[in-house]
């Protein structure tokens, strides 16, 4: 039997009615107009094709989905009133709310949102010529979708998306997917009004008049690279939980250098404070109460060792192959790498806030009220400090011994690329290089930094195997630990671990050991507790064998000057939840460090309770 | 020479230039009187100071030059004392006008020829607009430009060299000056056109009662137009006299040399007389007669003391020690003697 969460209202205060004090005693601003300057314009409003963060963050507020997360990350019904899953876990039936309207950008009613809108969207996404970037998300789970996408079948009715009537939608999966609900908040499962889509044709999504809205906001004005003005959708089904009336976005290419100044002058409600300017904000008495960290995200950064080096002979790929297949060598590097110092290039004030010991970040997913990172062998890793000079030196000695025997030359050359468009990465690379060479000695390792232009960066470095040791990152696609194993799968293009020749004490290839652990976890579809534990153990194995070194978790914009408390907004480890403005409210004063920390703590405990509540 | 009224009198003028930190004396105490209505020709080789000398009458010396001493008296004013532009504006054009050597570059290429003439008229003749235009057309006609009305609207590049020189002359004449200085007005022109221009100037002189100073190194031109001739050498006037006097009875060895080197006087198959050497360096102080080092007839005193002017006739004087009674008698070169003889014969023939 499927779960059917109570479709109760989220525990927000009752929507403010006329005459009520919307400032709640001066806590919130009287005028709920959010102003912001942005440096990067969206490419399109066609939410069915694009998956860039910036495009999705706009679409998230314009179109609503079947389900949504509340501010604690608990799944709540949205367009779907309720839903059920078949016994075999393959058939998901959603019952839609009635009377949800599609409106145009001026708020004029166009049609009602029906089950067919989801079918139409799936059809559009799965049609190859539409170049939808989210197609693979859909066809990775939906029955016959991949075949349709590859034009092996042409009859869309065979694909597992059906509207049995106007308010009943059935998704049929190709295999049970326990986390399917979480995928529904992704743009791939957004609805679209078919007659309108057809009418627009190619023009769909190129202007604010070229899409229809059923979400909390209408994009009333859109002049690319000038402004985006969104106003509250008065026809929105949950409009009582939409507090910010206007989202006034102005374009400025130099927003990062000017944002702080604009905030100071009261011209924006939110400004990103780049690391370079942090000192000023932290020390200036006038400013230091107006800056706060951003909430942690779910993108994680980690260093990987390359097991299939493809770089120039100049950097001795053969020698690297010998070295990288030695666990002590890898571990010596992990132990010698001062991750706090590295992260300090991005967040010099509180690097510990972001340093991470796992690949999967905390607060990503949980089972039985227990956070994933506290499960199984991962829990042991959580509090550990990998950085240990003494250990690094002893590991080095061992490695030197073993590697000399294996015929390696010293110093081992390490090729470390970075992307030139990111200033902190360049700095981090310098910190890492210097740290490794001083602690381990340049007679042992010699790091060469390889700057690469942003154009074709991945193809030129990681994907081409043109590195030995490199910072990479990964973000989740759905709310299940499996998503973080993707980079390390066979035939992936992260660090090619399947090429390792190293064997464990039992003589088994260590990658094969890891792979079998993953297979076992993936196969476990019913007992989620077990599934989570298996994944956690596999991840710990990967880290303990130094295939990979976790580094940090993304933290949105780092530091911000803002009047928006992030904890009031919906939360989800992935998808569009954090991008929506529902629930957000402008404070009367900028958030200070302290306020942020308190709010975070409060949120953390409330979330634990909420999760436990939901798990019941 | 029609009358003896002096219009301009230059006395002992010394002009110096600063050049690359050094001082150059371009005019070394030259004196000259100019009579109303006459044509005076100043001859001399390149660099002898002809242009500088006359430019100083109009305050047109280059910025690095200055009048060191001496006076230029015009209508009871000493022009040598003029300093500001406002002073000079009263002289330039209105009293003294100038025709420059190069007709190709002396006109503003972007203004119609007529406008450029008209500008002079408007400046100096109290006429504006249509009236000025009418006069401009008239003057263009006077200087021998056919179809002046059509030509009025044309640009300098549509004119030939000779015609441009006419326009330049028209501009000068349009100022209605007393004195017209023509700085090498015909050197850039063909012989035939040269003759026409000279004729034109003579006609204009009569019509507008001009006093003209011709500057040239072409003695043929001088013979054609000049009433009097001043011969310059190294910044000084070394001989001055009526045209006939200078041609037929020159006294200064430099004048001799100048005349004898004319091919017209040479005998085919024989060597032409030529002046050896180069003019003196004006940066250095010149002791004695500047021409002495190149003078085959130089006396010892020429290297010691600068000769004074010796008067030959009341209208003819020369600066050479050869005229001193104590000096040995030196006959002028053969070619000059021959010319004098021929002239005598010709005169007889005419009678």
């Amino acid at each position, binding site marked *: 039997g499927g779960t059917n969460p109570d479709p109760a209202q989220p525990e927000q205060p009752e929507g403010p009615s006329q005459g009520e004090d919307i400032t709640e005693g001066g806590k919130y601003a009287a005028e709920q107009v959010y102003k912001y300057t942005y440096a990067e314009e969206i490419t399109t409003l066609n939410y069915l094709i*694009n*998956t860039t963060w910036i495009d999705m963050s706009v679409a998230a507020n314009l179109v609503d989905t079947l389900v949504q997360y509340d501010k604690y990350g608990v799944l709540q019904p949205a367009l779907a009133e309720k839903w059920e899953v078949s016994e075999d876990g393959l058939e998901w039936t959603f019952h839609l709310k009635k009377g949800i309207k599609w409106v145009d950008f001026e708020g004029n009613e166009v049609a009602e949102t029906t089950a067919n809108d989801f079918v139409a969207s799936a059809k559009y996404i799965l049609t190859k*010529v539409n170049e939808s970037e989210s197609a693979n998300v859909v066809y990775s789970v939906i029955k016959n979708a991949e075949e349709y996408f590859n034009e092996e079948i042409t009859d869309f009715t065979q694909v597992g998306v059906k509207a049995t009537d106007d308010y009943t939608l059935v998704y049929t999966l190709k295999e049970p997917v326990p986390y399917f609900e979480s995928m529904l908040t992704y743009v791939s499962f957004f609805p679209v009004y078919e007659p309108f889509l057809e009418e627009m044709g190619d023009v769909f999504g190129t202007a604010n008049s070229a899409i229809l809205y059923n979400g909390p906001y209408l994009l009333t004005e859109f002049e690319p*690279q000038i402004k985006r003005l969104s106003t509250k959708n008065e026809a929105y089904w949950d409009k009582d939980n939409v507090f910010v009336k206007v989202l006034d976005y102005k374009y400025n*290419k130099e927003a990062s250098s000017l944002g702080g100044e604009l905030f100071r*002058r009261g011209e924006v409600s939110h400004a990103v404070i780049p690391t370079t300017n942090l000192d000023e904000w932290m020390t200036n008495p006038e400013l230091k109460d107006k800056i706060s960290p951003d909430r942690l995200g779910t993108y994680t950064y980690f260093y990987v060792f390359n097991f299939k080096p493809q770089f120039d002979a100049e950097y001795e790929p053969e020698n690297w192959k010998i070295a990288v297949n030695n666990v002590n060598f890898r571990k010596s590097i992990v132990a010698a790498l001062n991750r706090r110092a590295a992260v300090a290039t991005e967040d010099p004030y509180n690097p510990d806030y972001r340093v991470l010991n796992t690949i999967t970040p905390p607060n990503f997913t949980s089972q039985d009220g227990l956070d994933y990172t506290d499960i199984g062998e991962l829990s042991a890793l959580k509090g550990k400090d990998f950085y240990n000079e003494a250990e690094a030196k002893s590991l080095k000695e061992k490695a030197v011994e073993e590697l000399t025997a294996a015929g390696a030359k010293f110093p081992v050359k390490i090729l470390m690329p970075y992307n030139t468009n990111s200033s902190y990465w360049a700095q981090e690379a310098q910190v890492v290089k210097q740290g490794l060479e001083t602690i381990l000695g340049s007679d042992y390792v010699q790091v060469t930094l390889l700057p690469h232009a942003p154009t074709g960066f991945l193809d030129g470095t990681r994907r081409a195997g043109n590195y030995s040791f490199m910072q990479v990152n990964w973000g989740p696609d759905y709310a299940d630990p499996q998503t973080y194993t993707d980079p390390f799968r066979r035939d992936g293009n992260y660090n090619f671990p399947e090429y390792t020749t190293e064997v464990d004490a039992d003589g088994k290839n260590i990658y094969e050991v890891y792979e079998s652990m993953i297979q076992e976890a993936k196969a476990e579809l019913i007992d989620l507790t077990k599934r989570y534990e298996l994944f956690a153990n596999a991840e710990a194995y990967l880290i303990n064998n130094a295939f990979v070194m976790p580094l940090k978790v993304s933290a949105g914009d780092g530091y911000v000057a803002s009047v928006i408390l992030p904890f009031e907004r919906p939360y989800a480890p992935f998808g569009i939840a954090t991008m929506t403005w529902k629930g957000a409210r402008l404070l009367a004063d900028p958030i200070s460090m302290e306020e942020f920390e308190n709010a975070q703590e409060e949120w953390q405990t409330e979330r634990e309770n909420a999760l436990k509540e939901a798990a019941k | 020479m029609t009358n003896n009224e002096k219009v301009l009198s230059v006395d002992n003028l010394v002009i110096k230039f600063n050049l690359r930190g050094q001082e150059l004396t371009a005019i070394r105490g030259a004196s000259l009187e100019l009579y109303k209505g006459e044509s005076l020709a100043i001859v001399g080789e390149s660099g002898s100071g002809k242009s500088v000398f006359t430019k100083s009458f109009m305050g047109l010396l280059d910025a690095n030059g200055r009048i060191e001493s001496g006076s230029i008296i015009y209508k009871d004013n000493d022009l040598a004392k003029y300093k500001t532009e406002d002073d000079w504006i009263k002289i330039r054009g209105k009293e003294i006008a100038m025709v420059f050597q190069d007709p190709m570059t002396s006109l503003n290429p972007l203004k119609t020829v007529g406008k450029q003439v008209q500008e*002079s008229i408007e400046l100096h003749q109290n006429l504006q607009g249509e009236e000025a235009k009418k006069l401009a057309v008239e003057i263009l006609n006077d200087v021998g430009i056919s179809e002046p009305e059509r030509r009025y609207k044309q640009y300098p590049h549509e004119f030939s060299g000779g015609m441009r020189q006419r326009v330049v002359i028209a501009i000068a004449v349009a100022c209605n000056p007393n004195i017209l200085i023509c700085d090498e007005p015909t050197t850039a022109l063909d012989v035939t056109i040269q003759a026409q221009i000279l004729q034109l100037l003579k006609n204009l002189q009569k019509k507008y009662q001009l006093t003209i100073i011709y500057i040239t190194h072409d003695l043929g031109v001088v013979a054609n137009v000049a009433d009097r001739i001043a011969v310059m050498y190294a910044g000084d006037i070394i001989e001055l006299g009526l045209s006939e006097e200078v041609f037929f009875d020159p006294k200064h060895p430099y004048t001799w040399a100048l005349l004898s080197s004319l091919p017209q006087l040479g005998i085919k198959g024989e060597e032409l007389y030529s002046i050896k050497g180069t003019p003196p360096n004006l940066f250095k102080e010149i002791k004695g007669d500047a021409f002495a080092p190149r003078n085959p007839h130089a006396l010892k005193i020429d290297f010691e003391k600068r000769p004074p002017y010796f008067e030959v006739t009341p209208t003819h004087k020369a600066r050479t020690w050869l005229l001193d009674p104590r000096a040995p008698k030196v006959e002028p070169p053969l070619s000059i003697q021959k010319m004098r003889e021929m002239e005598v014969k010709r005169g007889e023939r005419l009678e």
Partner: protein
Amino acid sequence: MMKYYVTRLFRSFLTLMIVITIVFLLMRMMPIEGYFGSGFDKLDAGQIEAKLKNLGLLDPLPVQLKNFYISLLKGDLGQSITYRPKVDNTKILGDKLITSLRFGVASLTLSLIVGLSLGILMARHKGKFWDKFGTCYVVGANAVPAVIYYLLIQVFFTDIFKLPLLFDKSVPKSWILPILCLSLVTTAYYAMWIRRYMVDELNKDYVRLARAKGLKSKEIMIRHVMRNAFVPMAQYLPASILYTVAGSIYVESLFSIPGTGGLLVTVIQRQDNTLVQALVLLYSSIGIVGLMLGDILMSAFDPRIKLSHEGGSR
């Protein structure tokens, strides 16, 4: 005359075709990764192929070229592919060009007025105070990187004069600073050149004649020298006006001006081939047309110049 321009236009057209072909080929050297956004890592081979195929990038190069020429000859600049997918390039460019052109013309007017006055002042008082002052300005504006003083202006002028920090079409005051910034360098440029040309002209014989004629130096300046000195600049004037549509990358970014400044840089980096080509085509034609207009303008100013005899397309 007409024939001359027709042949010249034809030759320019050929040049343009070569230019655009080279750019076309150059753009094909860029990596495929660039055609995708940040989501590239998450796409699978099928999706990548689908997009590339759609863009026609999987065709053999000659076929791509042929298609490109055909649509170009039809006057079709195509649709943007990555910058704003599916939007007509003409539409993208249209608004931006107008904005940049407005700023360009405004600042050009300002710098022409100020620059020419300053240059004339400098030439008149050669070696004196104004000349020295102007020279300091010219040197400063030319030698100090613009990035630095634009920022200074933006920070301090907004503070001191209470001017808006960012541009907003509807706020007239917000035009001031960008125009000021834009005109700083060009002002120096015009001042420098007009001074140089004036000094050149002042050494010419006709000025000597004008002086001998009795014109005051002020009148000589106004009636003769200024116009003549302007002629050599006239040639580049139309081109510089037209080139303002290219915008200024610094100023436009700093003040949020929705113009074309830096657009080329952005679209090359985004690998929006069609937009790059459209821009290159635009800029090149502007260059060519500008020079031609310059020649016409110059021949209007200078009666000596007849364009009928042969000359390159410069």
